[in-house]
């Protein structure tokens, strides 16, 4: 397949994003910058307890405060009392009980944000704390564990059964086992939850909101407000990062309730601490793996148990469990497989979507196992992976055939051939050493390590989800020049989708002037900006709508061969077409065997990490990250590199520092003072190789690119730290004390 990419600012060009300069100079309007004269400020009262009965709520003291316009509890929810992404189990406002620290209990609207906060604090809630379920293993397996919800604590158990592991085990010459743990990572977007709800004359509400999927928000909001969906109109406000944390609702219903109640526009903006309590996180995981292989390192069987802590509400836990199970052995050929993946309710903070979505946790475990296996077989990490690598024609754990290019062995060979960085000089700049300018070493105790990892990620929604996007494309003459207007509801969350939509329109219609209209619900759903799917699905919708426009144009041209494009448009008026685009359908995993063609596209990324570790203090400097990723087709090289850098950085963060610490159901570090994300001195330069082996089913042959780098960078960094220290390091993030206080490392 060849694609015409020569068009200026079309597909394949490093077109600059329109919001880039504004963001760098601080002029971009985020949702938190929204303003209307006469607007009120909303505030939320949240539970201090991870688990408690609510005996009474007295909003009187709040209402008595000057400047307060409304104070609401669950009694004031006009419609359905609960909402949820896949299942409506989350109360809009707590009803008689709270199930996690930070659960919204009451709302206030006031004429000043400070007044609203104080009024919320003045509400008197009588709690009766009860035993909190905080151990996910107990929630999963102890029948005597208290139930967080009436139906028990098991959200989903997904088995995968291929072949006969019991029989295969007898034939394995080498067996390695390991128990692994992944801490609770946060998406750590910089723009906190925020939006502005404006009451409308028709009794509905207009909501300006930073979100990932306008239509699924609307479909959850409207029933709770007791309104038909048509009366809840959403427009995308400036989004300051998402990474999954905006898939679930936060303040959408709350602000709308306050606006409808007061008849005034109501703005809500979470503070940083509130934000940490106000969105879902990545599921922490406990995983037990057993890999059997032949002496020459060929996998015979894999057995795994994966327990994901979903916290207090369902959110997207079922789909996360599906990913962990279906991708649980990674991109390796294995004949016999037995996986049990569990998602459970606890009274810990709710967990849901985050970049990598269930595949991240499993990848850390299976890649750690592959390194153990390499050691047991006396093979290099690259060799063990190459010997078991999938390729086109292989089947993954679900039995699904990989029917598009998957050149994993070639990718491994390429990354292994990349030159390694030089050792750091003796009189090095402190910034090149572990600890940086904090000057913990001048080279003492520093050892280098190199680690490799690969990852397998599904692209787009899986398991039978009707995953589509809608695009409206209008070609018209404006001021004597042809112009294209592209309108979708797809959320630009920083990934560069607005730019890509315009590039596609330029390439498809051969028109330079393209405007991408603001995303809102006046056009059909675009689906979620998640699962690395928007270039694929919304890109596909824009492409298809453009093709429809082009078809009509071609017919007009055939009829009037003498007229130019602009003359045609002037004479016959604009050409507008709206199209829905769907990827190949998928099916749910078989509930007993886990088998089925559950994914529409699979993507690979490979990382090599080079680290210097101060083995005495346990401090790590990642010297270099290299990545090889197959994206099928590069739409925008600059934006794509940014995605790979960012995904790799997020994975590095999980390996070395990013963790929401939860004790007894309470978050200990809800701020960027103590929830650490990598700085420019932690994230090294990257060496990238981007491959373009097209997927014939996808628009332009593209493969979703945003998530795969987040999978493999974590185990690559962890493997490199293991190589430097000789320690097993079975938990991420790796804490300094995990290295420094383990005697083996100080030799």
């Amino acid at each position, binding site marked *: 397949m060849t694609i015409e990419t020569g068009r200026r600012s079309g597909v394949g060009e490093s077109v600059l994003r329109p919001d880039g300069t504004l963001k760098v100079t601080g002029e971009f309007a985020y949702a938190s910058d929204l303003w209307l004269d006469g607007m009120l400020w909303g505030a939320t009262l949240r539970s201090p307890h991870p688990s408690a009965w609510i005996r009474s709520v007295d909003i009187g003291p709040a209402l008595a405060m000057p400047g307060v316009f409304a104070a609401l509890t669950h009694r004031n929810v006009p419609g359905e009392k609960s909402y949820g992404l896949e299942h409506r189990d989350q109360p809009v406002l707590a009803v008689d009980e709270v199930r996690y620290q930070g659960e919204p209990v009451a709302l206030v609207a006031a004429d000043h944000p400070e007044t609203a*906060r104080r009024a919320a604090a003045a509400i008197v809630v009588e709690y009766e704390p009860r035993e909190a379920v905080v151990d996910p293993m107990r929630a999963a397996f102890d029948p005597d564990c208290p139930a967080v919800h009436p139906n028990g604590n098991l959200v989903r158990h997904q088995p995968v059964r291929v072949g006969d592991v019991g029989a295969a085990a007898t034939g394995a010459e080498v067996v390695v086992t390991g128990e692994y743990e992944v801490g609770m990572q946060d998406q750590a977007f910089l723009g906190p939850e925020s939006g502005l709800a404006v009451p409308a004359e028709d009794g509905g509400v207009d909501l300006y909101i930073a979100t990932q999927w306008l239509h699924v928000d609307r479909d959850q909001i409207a029933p709770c407000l007791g309104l038909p969906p048509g009366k809840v109109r959403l427009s995308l406000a400036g989004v300051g990062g998402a990474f999954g944390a905006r898939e679930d609702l936060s303040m959408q219903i709350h602000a709308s309730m306050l606006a409808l109640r007061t008849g005034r526009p109501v703005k809500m903006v979470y*503070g940083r*601490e509130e934000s940490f309590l106000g969105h879902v996180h990545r599921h922490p995981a406990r995983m037990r793996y057993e890999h059997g292989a032949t002496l020459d390192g060929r996998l015979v069987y894999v057995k795994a148990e994966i327990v994901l802590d979903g916290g207090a509400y369902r959110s997207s836990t079922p789909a996360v469990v599906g990913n962990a199970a279906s991708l649980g052995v990674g991109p390796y050929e294995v004949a016999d497989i037995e996986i049990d993946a569990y998602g459970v309710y606890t009274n810990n903070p709710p967990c849901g979507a985050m970049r990598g979505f269930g595949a991240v946790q499993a990848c850390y475990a299976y890649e750690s196992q592959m390194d153990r296996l390499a050691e047991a077989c006396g093979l290099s990490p690259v060799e063990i992976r190459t010997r078991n690598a999938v390729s086109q024609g292989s089947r993954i754990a679900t039995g699904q055939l990989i029917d598009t290019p998957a050149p994993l062995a070639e990718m491994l060979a390429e990354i292994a051939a990349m030159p390694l960085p030089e050792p750091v000089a003796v009189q090095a700049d402190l*910034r090149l050493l*572990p*600890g*940086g*300018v*904090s*000057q*913990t*070493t*001048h080279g*003492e*105790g520093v050892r280098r390590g190199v680690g490799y990892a690969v990852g397998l990620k599904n692209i787009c929604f899986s398991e039978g989800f009707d995953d589509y996007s809608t695009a409206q494309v209008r070609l018209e003459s404006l001021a004597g020049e042809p112009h294209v207007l592209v309108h979708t509801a797809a959320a630009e969350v920083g990934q560069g989708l607005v730019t890509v939509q315009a590039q596609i329109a330029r390439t498809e219609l051969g028109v330079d002037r393209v405007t991408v209209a603001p995303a809102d619900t006046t056009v059909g759903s675009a689906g979620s900006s998640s699962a690395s799917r928007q270039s694929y699905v919304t890109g596909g919708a824009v492409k298809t709508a453009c093709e429809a426009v082009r078809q009509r144009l071609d017919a007009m041209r055939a009829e009037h061969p003498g007229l130019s494009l602009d003359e045609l448009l002037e004479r016959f008026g604009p050409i507008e077409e709206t199209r829905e685009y769907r990827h190949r359908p998928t099916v749910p995993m078989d509930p007993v065997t886990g088998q089925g063609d559950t994914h529409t596209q699979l993507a690979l990324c490979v990382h090599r990490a080079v680290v210097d570790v101060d083995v*005495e*203090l*346990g*401090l790590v*400097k990642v010297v270099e990250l290299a990545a090889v990723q197959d994206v099928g087709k590069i739409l925008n090289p600059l934006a794509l590199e940014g995605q790979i850098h960012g995904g790799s950085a997020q994975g590095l963060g999980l390996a*070395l*520092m990013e963790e929401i*610490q939860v004790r007894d159901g309470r978050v*200990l*570090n809800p*701020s960027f*003072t*103590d929830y*650490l994300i*990598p*700085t*420019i*001195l*932690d994230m090294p330069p990257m060496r990238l190789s981007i491959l373009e082996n097209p997927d014939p089913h996808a628009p332009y042959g593209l493969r979703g690119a945003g998530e795969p780098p987040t999978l493999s960078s974590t185990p690559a960094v962890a493997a490199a730290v293991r190589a430097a220290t000789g320690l097993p390091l079975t938990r991420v993030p790796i*804490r*300094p*004390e995990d290295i*420094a*206080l383990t005697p083996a490392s100080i030799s």
Partner: protein
Amino acid sequence: MDFLRARTWAEALELKAERPEATPIQGGTDVMVEINLDRGRPAALLDLNTVGELAGWSREGEWIRVGAGVTYARLIDELGEVLPGLAQASRTVGSPQIRNRGTLAGNLGAASPAGDGHPPLLASGAVVEAESVRGVRLIPIARFYTGVKRNALAPDELIRAVRVPTAAGPQYFSKVGTRNAMVIAVCSFAIALHPENRRVGTGIGSAAPTPLRAVAAEAFLAGELDWTLGRAGGSALDPEVAARFAELVAGAAAPIDDVRGRAAYRSHALAVMARRTLGWAWHDYLRAGRGAR
């Protein structure tokens, strides 16, 4: 919350006398964070940014008098040669933006055990110049810290300056954090060699309710070091002495388990930092001795 602004130092002292509950503010890198997080909102803020006298430093004999308005960025750029330990510590404070605004006096006013400025001040034997309408009071740094986020200032006193002896010997500051920049100390350590009177200075941060000296370690090391720089250029550091020094430093701390690290790790890291910084300092001392001949 009232906002008071002083134009002169005299006016600042009067305002503080009238409103002793007012919290002084300069860079706001600590005070504003606390306010934004809604933790203990002060009854009043006393803005000292407009008090020009505070923004300079001067050399007074063997001392540098650092005005309360001098930022970390200036400590690094202008005083790195004469106050190397303090400059190294300043370099680890926050981000460039924070170092452009934050002041050493603010670190002292907040008196957080994790403040980066404290250990080098302890190691070098600094003196806090406190002033009120009643007059000037000089507070030796080791007596300045009285508890967690508490200091020896009287309610009507403001910090006018910090007097720090110019370095007569090598100084080092070292800090452990879980990331390679922009991180609050898990624990920190400063050492200063004082060859002129054959003393050793130390400072420990973030490993006890207050910043503190490792007094026993200082005394032990001062006695063990062979300060004479003979024809051979002085003798190398005895590893056993370094190990004992490290042990005494760790022993001086009283760390706790918290969200940033465990007590056991803090003790361990302090010992490592003490041993390493001593090695660097002694190496510099010997090299300087050789260079002097």
